């Protein structure tokens, strides 16, 4: 593992899961910083602020997006994010991470160009490292 990722982002309402992932990232030193949002809307608001301030250094290199969340779920977030994504120069890798094993969810996630892959929870530690490695 040569260089670390600057900024990773987790959009998920499951506090325990977020805590655990935070721990993994700390222990394995996968990313310098971590952004955490409880639902799609919080994340979207953040990206809109960045867009209006043009401070691209605050953009994450990688996003882990949950599907089932209150207020704005992962699908709605994807729908909104597509509209603003092209305004950013920075390459952002987005993974959908869900505990849903419904093949229809998988199909639908893959139909979005900006979704790199669909990961089913739980993700193994090794897989986490590989993903961060690839992006970095």
């Amino acid at each position: 593992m040569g260089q670390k990722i600057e900024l990773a982002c987790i959009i998920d309402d499951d506090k325990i899961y977020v805590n655990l992932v935070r721990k993994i990232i700390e222990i394995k030193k996968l990313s310098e910083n971590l952004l955490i949002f409880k639902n799609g809307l919080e994340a979207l608001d953040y990206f809109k602020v960045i867009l209006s301030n043009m401070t691209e250094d605050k953009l994450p290199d990688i996003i882990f997006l949950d599907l089932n969340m209150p207020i704005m779920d992962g699908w709605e977030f994807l729908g909104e994010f597509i509209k603003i994504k092209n305004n950013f120069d920075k390459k952002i890798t987005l993974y959908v991470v869900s505990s849903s094993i419904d093949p229809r969810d998988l199909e639908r996630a893959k139909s979005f160009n900006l979704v790199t892959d669909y990961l089913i929870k739980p993700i193994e530690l090794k897989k986490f490292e590989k993903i961060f490695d690839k992006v970095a």
Partner: protein
Amino acid sequence: MLNDLQLNSILEDFDIAYWKINLLTKEITWSDHFESLVGKPSLEEPIFDFFINKVLHKDYKYDFRIAFDNLISTTDNLNQEIKIKIQNDKYRWFECRNLKSKENSSKEIAVLLFVNIHQSKRDQYTIEENFFYYRETAEMTSTGGWYIDGLSKSIYWDDVTKRIFDCPKDFQPDYEERMRFYATEHQQMAISMFDKCEKYGIPFKIELKMLTHHGREFWVVATGKPVYSDEQEIIGIRGVFQDIDVNKSNELNLQNSLDIIATQNSRLFNFAHVVSHNLRSHSSNLSLVAQLLTESNDAREKLNLLDNVVDISDNLDDAISELNSMVSHHGLLTKERSNVSFNKALDIVVAATSSLINRERAKIISEFTALKEINYIPEYLESILLNLITNAIRYKHPGRKPVIFIQTYMANDQCFMEVSDNGMGIDLEQYGDKMFGMYKTFHRNPDAKGIGLFITKNQVETMGGSISVTSTINIGTTFKIKF
């Protein structure tokens, strides 16, 4: 007068064969043409016996012999249709009649003519046969014909139509009362259909609910076409009614079963979703903790991770009891229906939610006079009211105190309840189809658990009813339940 020869050749030209009978000697002579038709008589028996035994079809032997005897003894006129075997051994139809004697003609000679009527007889059979098949088909398919005379304003029904409508055979439908045979909800459609056909000549084919003479509802396919006069004006409508009640009710039953299966399926799907999401997310967290535990060497870190295990176990417990409550909701059908008063059910719900109602200073107005009680499972009615009321309060308009109006009524022999509020409303365009799904929360309200409406819909449907919603943003929402 024509002589025999001339007469003979004329008769032959017209393909007419004849017998000449000497009334005194009873001697019979066949014309050449007759002989060429049936062949020469044998010499062993009298010519008449030969005709009766070898030429005439046996069905006519008896009648012909009597008529022939009458002719020669009393000169009664003979006129019969008979079948005769001609030379190729095939039977042909002939009309047999005597040449009427004029006053000056000889009383000693009778002439019996044989006219070939085979073709016309066959045509007649074909028509009779066709008519028979038409009748049978009409009977078997329950298809009745009708005609509306636009000029005399009268209606003609054939026998099958009368039978379809359970009418006596001598029944005469009255033009002015013709709409009484159409189910109320289809009268308008029928009127416009007949109107268009009568005015513009537009034919129709349509499935209709109709009523018999005694008012029984049944389904028909009605087909109608305009009838034009020689001047190309529409003078009436002709058509058929086909009774498709059996097919239609089968179709409706099938659709009904399909709906039930689809509902069950969507319930199962929702259930699988909850299992997949809720249970799996906890188990996957557990697996993450386990992985971290094996990786970590720090004792303090391990203790911290163990705290997570406690949290996960609590959440898992919650999820399982929630699933359990859903399953037991579905199982509630074993509970018995009884007559439930809407007032009583509402009182119970208001008492149970009094703290919420008081805190939000919500006002609940009820109007149950049109329908005071219903045969239902009491727990379901309470649960439905509870969910709809708390829903209305939870999604109140931020600038208004919540007002909830609950009304019951009857329409078309069906029981209805409407629960309306003055809340924030919801964009049905965007969320309409998801409204009653599980774990769907549409408002930016973190308290929302998104299970209430799912359960409400399930309860209503388990009892054989349906629920629908109308809403306007910033005005309010109305839930309508058909019991």
